């Protein structure tokens, strides 16, 4: 077990050492984060200039949800996506062989190799938006809420990891899949709204196919004190199911892999 953690730690160190070489990217990332969040906040302001609630969510609550969405997307771009891009590149070029010959679990390895530390700017920006929204809501955050938020956020990250990894496993069968990811990225953008706003069939897609409902809406419910316990259990169950499914598919994928030159 310690071997796994140590390895992850070394990869993180390497990533940090690599990325601090490009300090200007930090400032560019700040500007980009400000623009993206600014646009999203403008949309919210426009919506709430014409109504006072959207599907039962008030302005500040939806702002908190936007903060959660921003954090989720940042995690996706910080760690999950770069790792997957590298994995797919490895599969296409056959350098996945080098992962397989190393004496540590392959899935663990391909999940920790990359880290874009400057993306953490977006995590912080999302956090600031959440804090600001909670401040305006004027609610006192009890430690129970904070714990629930932590759990649901963690679940959400694992869930997104599992779904994105599941899609990338398709690369073992079909080589060119970059467009599927683009499609999924677009679907994920639906997470910036609470799922109950959408028509029923879209809601089903957003809950069980691309589960942004569980990844974004549920943590946002937790932090704005509107979470009920069944949602928490369901979120945990869905996360576990996706993780187990991923493990199964991953094993089959490994059997299927035969090297690019073989």
């Amino acid at each position: 077990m310690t071997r796994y953690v140590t390895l992850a730690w070394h990869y993180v160190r390497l990533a940090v050492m690599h990325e601090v070489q490009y300090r200007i990217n930090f400032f560019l990332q700040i500007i980009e984060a400000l623009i993206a969040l600014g646009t999203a906040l403008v949309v919210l302001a426009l919506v709430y200039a014409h109504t006072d609630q959207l599907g039962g969510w008030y302005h500040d609550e939806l702002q908190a949800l936007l903060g959660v969405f921003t954090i989720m997307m940042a995690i996706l771009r910080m760690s999950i996506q770069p790792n997957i891009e590298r994995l797919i590149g490895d599969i296409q070029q056959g350098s996945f062989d080098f992962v397989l010959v190393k004496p540590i679990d392959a899935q663990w390895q391909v999940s920790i190799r990359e880290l874009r530390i400057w993306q953490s700017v977006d995590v912080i920006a999302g956090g600031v938006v959440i804090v600001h929204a909670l401040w305006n809501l004027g609610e006192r955050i009890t430690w129970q809420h904070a714990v629930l938020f932590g759990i649901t956020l963690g679940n959400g990250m694992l869930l997104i990891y599992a779904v994105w990894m599941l899609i990338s496993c398709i690369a073992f069968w079909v080589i060119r899949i970059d467009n599927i990811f683009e499609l999924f990225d677009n679907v994920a953008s639906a997470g910036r709204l609470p799922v109950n706003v959408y028509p029923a069939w879209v809601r089903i897609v957003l809950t069980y196919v691309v589960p942004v409902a569980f990844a974004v809406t549920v943590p946002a419910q937790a932090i704005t004190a509107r979470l009920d316990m069944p949602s928490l259990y369901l979120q945990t169950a869905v996360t576990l199911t996706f993780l187990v499914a991923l493990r199964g598919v991953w094993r089959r994928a490994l059997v299927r892999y035969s090297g690019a030159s073989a």
Partner: protein
Amino acid sequence: MKQLWSVYRALTSVSVQLMLQYRLTNLFWLLGMLFEPCISLVVWSTVATQNGGEVAGYTTASLTGYYIAWTLVRQWNIALTPFGFEQRVRHGQLSPLLLRPLHPFHYDLADFIALRIVGTLYWLPIGIVMVAWLQPDLSHDPLTILLFCVSLVFSFLMRFVFVYALGMAVFWTTRVSAIFNLYFALETILSGRLVPQALLPSWAQQIAVWLPFRWSFGFPIEIIIGKLSIAEILQGMGIQVLWGMIATVAFVTLWNAGIKRYSAVGA
């Protein structure tokens, strides 16, 4: 002139054939693009329903029409961005283009015309299904539809030249991304891509009239959903042509000044 025409025909047809090779890619790309307007449509229909069926003069049906037309106009708005130009200069891809017999602009324009043709072909069945299924409020008047098509072509040409001219910035600096991100964010908000103009606060609407953004995006959409009179449409097309001319002058001036400074990366 006739020679240029035949060059364009040849270049465009080659590009169309190249793009048609990747049928699945194109389809995924198009499907992915549908999500942005879907989200906006959901938000604003919800608001309209909550307000008793209307928001700033838009009913649910006219909002549906707006965002269906959006999907077509969005496609015709795609241009060669400064980011693309930056990459070209950094990777040294511009130099070989300069050696070709025609100005690089012609090759790019032909390529993007081809993209419009392929994109529209793919869009047609999806558009027809959406119109039949969602019953939007769209104009049936043949003259309006014709004017819409013309203004669509105008908005494509106008924005293409405009954004191309912006790309000339790379002759002076190859770090353009931050400025242009801000520029495109402004464009997204003020052009009608995010929300119909009428939903913006009135001061923002007044600013938008004087900027080019609205004329390449919101304007053609407002034609097809029947928000504008014939006089307003013709006036708007005049403004499109005017912006197109301004963009052309800017592009030619900037290109001539910039190309003298250009000394390929790596040289």
